[in-house]
């Protein structure tokens, strides 16, 4: 293989570089020139700059035809990775915009720059095909997220959540690293594509299998699938709302994509099958069991929650269960469905957490009962919230519905007419019916119940509703015209040969 | 003129309906307004019926004044009307009794409009039933006449009207639905609702086979299946007449209903059942009747005897007359079943059968008028003295009210079948046929005949003869209005007794036709 030109390396890394530059700029502006300015202006400037950085990087990547593979897959830029990078940048941008008004900490510059750093990590995750780089990206992201979780250092819950997150995360990182090293020890390669060929040639080795299991454990943590989900409710509950939104959405997109990539590119030979009539050992049955438990546990645990954040956390676990279908299915179309699903899911989650933040800032807690009568006092926010929740629940004509439909349809492998995942899809459908129960419980408070006479009216900051409307209409449009997005996914998938 | 005569029956049906709507909708202050108008409308219908009777040619085979349009394609349903010698008798009876009942009614305190328009609706339903030749709308009218009857009892009846009306309705509906289901089975097997076509199947004896080809229930044999289908239809008409085990709705209903309504119930509505037997059971199911003939004749005898003895036990005059109605209609059932029993095509048998059938129709008509007349008399008694319709509530009225006594006597003697009055001819013809066709059954019903005489005479004796107690001193005789109301009926009773040929001329050709068409 030819050594790549430096110019190529530069091109390939350009989005990350732009973000890194933005990090520096933000810190410079905020700490250097604006340290004495009023908070509002600091937030606006820092947030605005970060957003512009994301925007610039987005326009660079979106629909770019670049195709570069650095040595050993250190960076593998193709239309798929560019698409994922664009998605992550858009979602990050939205989170940043929302954070401008919802950030409560005085450490404005730090907050935005850490978000951007985490994003860099995520970008590396989705655009690398090298075990080393993947681990690197993972650590960069994770460390940033620990800080983000602990950002509200005056609140004990925030610190507690961060500590738990950190402990679980650290452990899982260690496990992941161990797994990666075991795989490396069998194959002697870090490039996932090479790993695939060597594993095929060598056949299943016990050490390789052990490595695979450890890798699954590591990634399972990232995507909060049962039984590696324990951190999620705590973190979602304790972290400051903007951080929680970021963790629940953007980081999940990257988490799923990297899991999919690692398993489907590197360990494709060890896939096995989770089809009910021919279960073969491999990672697919393991993931299938994880998925089944995630759906069941996530949905049923969510029913019992009285806090909105924990409810969203458990529902996120359930959604992880659904999304795992996209990886387990042998049908390549399912990956496309997975991208669609995780994107629209993330958008709805960002929106939902923004509303959670509004709720907490007005009512002081995130109990479901605090939502009571929200529709009367703040109809726009409520309608948007309705859209987010309905999208999560999978009601047409919202994106969440088409996502589910697309994912489940593809998981049944229409092209071959084989119904291997019959059982898992069936379970997903059943449990998603359960999920209606608690989603409706939330919306009942908003729309059905009338506000108590003594509750204060609900004041929203001026800018947030616009962004909420933006997200909501995005979800609505993507639901009505999913083709706008799937049209981008299909060719990218083909080009990558997923 | 041809155009009108082609629509004559539809118009005849529509007139009372139109009248009902008009009476209901128009609502001026005058209380008697609705009575007058409804009487007017029903008399128009009577006039129409007479016109049709005038235009009717007795000897002609088949139906006259026919109207036939395709109504529904699936199931195939024709709107098919027509009259023959039998239905025209029933049509005349309807046209006679309803105006009589309206003329008799006092405007009720609550909702007089509704009361009279319900009576008109009833007339519409009855007219429709007697002219329909397709099961579909025959059934429509059959049921449609039930609703006004139900409400007349329900809203203006006596003290126990709620329970009574409910029982009445439910009994009748049970019968109707059984009949409906059976007819649907017929439709499914034979593909038609037309009475003519169904009768043709019946005549050729294809019914059993067709049913067993298309319908299968729990491995029943063909015969049993066809009997099952027959029983459904039978139940429908038997409840309406009613035959004895299905009769228990009747005495209470007749008692609780306001007397003018009772007159309609007994005068015309019970005839729907008989008509149903002649129009449906006889031509379509001759084979099935033969299979069950012992049971059916037994039921008829039971009805006759039971009705008579039960009437004997009653002290309430209305109840007594109610049971006597059961008894009288039992003769009709006897005649009908008897006319199917013997298999044979000799002239002798045909004559006997035709005689029985003639008797049945005649009996229907004359029971219609005599029973109405008797109830009318009870109505007079009721209106004279509170709720005094107990047997023995009056006595010795002969001296106080000679006209009343005379008319009442005519009606009572007509009812017990005195020769020279209308009922005699009917009963005579029925028994003439029955004695040769089904001698056992005829013999067994004789006690019924005798007991009828006993209770009617006893009623007459107690009420009119003997000393007149003081409280009856003020009993007023019939006034001119009442006499005017009663006279047509009385005249008919006598005229028919003397010249039964007026009706037999209409009935006989058709009766012979039906008999001839019965399977050999």
């Amino acid at each position: 293989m030819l050594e790549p030109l430096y110019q190529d390396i530069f091109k390939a890394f350009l989005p990350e570089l732009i973000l890194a530059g933005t990090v520096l700029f933000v810190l410079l502006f905020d700490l250097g020139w604006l340290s004495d300015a009023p908070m509002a202006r600091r937030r606006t400037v820092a947030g605005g700059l970060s957003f512009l950085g994301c925007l610039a990087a987005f326009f660079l990547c979106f629909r770019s035809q670049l195709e570069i593979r650095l040595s050993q897959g250190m960076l593998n830029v193709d239309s798929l990775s560019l698409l994922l990078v664009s998605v992550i940048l858009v979602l990050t941008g939205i989170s940043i915009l929302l954070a401008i008004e919802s950030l409560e900490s005085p450490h404005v510059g730090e907050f935005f720059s850490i978000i951007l750093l985490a994003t860099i990590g995520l970008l590396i995750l989705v655009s690398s095909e090298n075990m080393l780089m993947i681990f690197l990206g993972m650590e960069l992201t994770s460390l940033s997220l620990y800080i983000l979780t602990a950002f509200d250092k005056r609140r004990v819950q925030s610190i507690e959540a961060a500590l738990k997150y950190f402990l679980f995360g650290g452990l899982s990182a260690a496990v992941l690293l161990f797994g990666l090293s075991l795989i490396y020890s069998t194959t002697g390669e870090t490039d996932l594509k090479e790993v695939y060929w060597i594993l095929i040639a060598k056949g299943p080795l016990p050490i390789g299998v052990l490595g695979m299991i450890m890798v699954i454990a590591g990634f399972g943590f990232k995507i909060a699938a049962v039984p590696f989900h324990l951190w999620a409710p705590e973190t979602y509950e304790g972290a400051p709302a903007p951080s929680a939104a970021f963790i629940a959405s953007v980081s999940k997109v990257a988490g799923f994509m990297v899991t999919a990539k690692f398993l489907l590119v590197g360990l494709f030979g060890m896939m096995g099958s989770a089809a009910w009539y021919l279960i073969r050992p491999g990672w697919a049955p393991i993931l299938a069991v994880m998925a089944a438990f995630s759906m069941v546990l996530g949905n049923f645990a969510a029913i019992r929650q009285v806090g909105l954040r924990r409810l969203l956390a458990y529902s996120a676990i359930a959604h992880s269960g659904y999304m795992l279908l996209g990886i387990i299915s042998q049908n390549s179309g399912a990956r496309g469905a997975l991208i669609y699903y995780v994107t629209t899911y993330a958008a709805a989650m960002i929106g939902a957490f923004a509303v959670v933040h509004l709720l907490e800032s007005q009512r002081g807690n995130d109990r479901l009962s605090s939502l009571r009568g929200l529709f009367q006092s703040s109809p726009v926010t409520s309608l948007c919230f309705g859209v987010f929740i309905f999208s999560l629940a999978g009601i047409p004509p919202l994106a969440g519905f088409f996502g589910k439909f697309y994912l489940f349809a593809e998981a049944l492998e229409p092209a071959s007419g084989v119904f291997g995942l019959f059982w898992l899809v069936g379970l997903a459908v059943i449990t998603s019916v359960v999920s209606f129960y608690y989603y409706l419980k939330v919306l009942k408070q908003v729309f059905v119940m009338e506000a108590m006479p003594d509750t204060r009216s609900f004041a929203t900051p001026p800018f947030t509703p616009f962004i909420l409307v933006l997200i909501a209409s995005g979800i609505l449009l993507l639901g009505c015209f999913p083709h706008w997005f799937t049209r981008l996914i299909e060719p990218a998938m083909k080009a990558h040969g997923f | 003129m041809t155009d009108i005569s082609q629509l004559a029956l539809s118009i005849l049906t529509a007139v009372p309906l139109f009248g009902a709507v008009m009476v209901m909708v128009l609502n001026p202050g005058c209380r008697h307004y609705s009575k007058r108008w409804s009487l007017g409308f029903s008399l128009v219908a009577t006039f129409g019926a007479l016109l049709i009777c005038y235009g009717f040619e007795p000897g002609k085979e088949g139906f006259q004044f026919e109207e036939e349009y395709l109504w529904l394609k699936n199931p195939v349903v024709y709107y098919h009307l027509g009259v023959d010698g039998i239905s025209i008798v029933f049509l005349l009876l309807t046209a006679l009794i309803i105006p009589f009942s309206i003329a008799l009614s006092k405007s009720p305190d609550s909702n007089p409009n509704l009361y009279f328009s319900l009576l008109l609706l009833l007339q519409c339903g009855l007219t429709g039933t007697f002219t329909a030749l397709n099961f579909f709308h025959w059934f429509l009218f059959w049921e449609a006449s039930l609703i006004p009857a139900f409400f007349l009892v329900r809203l203006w009846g006596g003290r126990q009207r709620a329970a009574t009306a409910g029982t009445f309705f439910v009994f009748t509906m049970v019968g109707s639905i059984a009949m409906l289901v059976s007819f649907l089975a017929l439709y499914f097997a034979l593909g038609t609702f037309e009475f003519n076509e169904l009768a043709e199947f019946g005549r050729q004896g294809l019914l059993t086979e067709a049913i067993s080809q298309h319908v299968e229930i729990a491995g029943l044999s063909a015969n049993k299946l066809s009997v099952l289908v027959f029983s459904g239809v039978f139940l429908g008409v038997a409840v309406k007449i009613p035959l004895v085990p299905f009769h228990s709705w009747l005495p209470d209903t007749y008692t609780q209903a306001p007397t003018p309504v009772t007159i309609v119930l007994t005068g015309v509505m019970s005839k729907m059942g008989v008509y149903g037997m002649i129009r449906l059971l006889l031509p379509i199911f001759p084979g099935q009747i033969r299979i069950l003939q012992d049971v059916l004749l037994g039921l008829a005898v039971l009805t006759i005897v039971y009705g008579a003895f039960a009437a004997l036990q009653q002290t309430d005059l209305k109840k007594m007359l109610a049971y006597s109605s059961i008894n009288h209609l039992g003769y009709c059932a006897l005649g009908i079943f008897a006319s199917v029993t013997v298999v044979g095509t000799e002239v002798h048998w045909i004559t006997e059968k035709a005689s029985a059938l003639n008797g049945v129709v005649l009996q229907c008509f004359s029971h219609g008028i005599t029973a109405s007349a008797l109830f009318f008399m009870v109505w007079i008694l009721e209106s004279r003295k509170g709720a005094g319709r107990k047997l023995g509530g009056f006595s010795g009225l002969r001296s106080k009210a000679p006209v009343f006594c005379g008319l009442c006597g005519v009606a009572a003697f007509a009812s017990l079948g005195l020769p020279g009055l209308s009922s005699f001819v009917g009963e005579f013809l029925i028994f003439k046929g029955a004695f040769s066709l089904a001698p056992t059954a005829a013999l067994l019903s004789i006690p019924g005949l005798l007991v009828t005489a006993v209770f009617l005479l006893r009623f007459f004796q107690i009420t009119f003869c003997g000393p007149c107690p003081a409280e009856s001193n003020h009993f007023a005789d019939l006034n001119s209005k009442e006499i005017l109301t009663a006279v047509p009926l009385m005249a008919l009773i006598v005229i028919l007794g003397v010249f039964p040929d007026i009706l037999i001329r209409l009935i006989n050709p058709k009766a012979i036709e039906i008999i001839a068409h019965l399977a050999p």
Partner: protein
Amino acid sequence: MLAWTIYLTFIGAVALLLLPISVRAVRFTALATALAGLLISVIEAILYHAIAFQEPMQIIVRKDWIPDLGIEYLLQYDGISLVLVLLNGIIAVSGILFSWNIRHREKEFFSLFLILIGAVYGVFLSFDAFLLLVFYEIAIIPKYFLIAIWGSTRKEYGAMKLVLYSMIGGGMIFFGIVAAYAASGGQTFNLEVLAKFEYPLLFQMIMFPILFVGFAVLAGLWPFHSWAPTGHVAAPTGASMLLAGVIMKIGAYGALRVAMTFFPLGLDYWRGPLSVMALIGIVYGACNALVQKDFKFVIGYSSVNHMGFVLLGMLTLHEIGVSGAVLQMFSHGILSGLLFAVAGTMVYERTGTRELDHLSRMMLSRKIPFVAVIFTLTGFASMGLPGFSGFVAELQILIGVWSAFPWMAIVAAIGILIGVAYNLRTMQTVFFTEPSPDHVMEMPGSSVISLPEKLGACLLISVSLVVGLYPRILLDLIYPSLHTPMMKALIEGGGH
């Protein structure tokens, strides 16, 4: 043009929500929207009469929607759809008339109401399985809010139960449709194409009950009917009219149009058990209605009874039986709408109670004779007396039943009889009881019947009468549609 029924209704719904207009204007806008929808469907029905026999299947719009999955935006109709579209239009208009005096969050009420109506139009007109599913699910959500916000007796329980049942049904449909799509090669969701595909036997045997029951849950198939009584009771009048009037029809329609045409072999296999279930529904619904103490519960169970006939009629696979089922859908829609209007608006708003025992002490036939007359007529229609729409429908169904399962005809007749009994009992108790003087209760509300109520009641009862006396109005739409390739295969496949 028929597509505009959907669009107009949705536009109306959004306009109501967004425009700052007075309550009065809200009502009239809603009414105008519903009337427009009805008008369009009536015109289309008249036009369709002329072409029904040549071209029973009419395409309205056909556009690629999501080409990757072969999903089309395909609106299409035949006579069956058209009959139900008409029903929906009528119910929409009368439902709004009977909701005229909603006094609480009016805008939202009418907006949700119209969304529901629009979605139902969509279900009846979609010939793409995905599109159908989308409309189906859209129809579910407004139901929840309509009941939970404006309902009465245990409204949140009723609403949640209803939605969860619908969603379970929705999930099964989802699964069934996706499976059919996958099994047929993942090319298209077009109903006609999917119906033509020959699925393997085992697959059909497994998937048919899932898809059928998924739809039939909404149609009130026993034993999945239990949402119906509680939901109906909890719902406000307008919503229960919609529930019984059209939502239950979505279920029956879907079962016929989707489940049965997709999997004829599976149908053959399951036909017996399912028709027994329908039969049990008939008898069970009637028996339950006979012993209820709450006015609306009676009607709720009567819906189960009537929908049993619909399902039984469809399962006969006999031309007449199926057409009877479609007619019964229409007829039951009209009648149950009217019954709920009487129970929920005309009586409940005046008396404040639905306990039969209390109502029986109020001598309602004297105080509100108009209502008594309307209810009586409706009761007679609902017992299937001839002259009303229900009769022709039940007659056709029973003919079909004679052909398919003769012994069931007898049981069904018993069901009809019990139907007579409960209708009579309700009528007697509510309107015609004369209590002893010391038991008399006053009727708290005014005895004046408002104009919208009169209009709505007359509209519905006259529709039932017209259809009862001249059923060809609808049968001429339905019959040709039973001879389209799609339905013909079904009727000839398992029928007589």
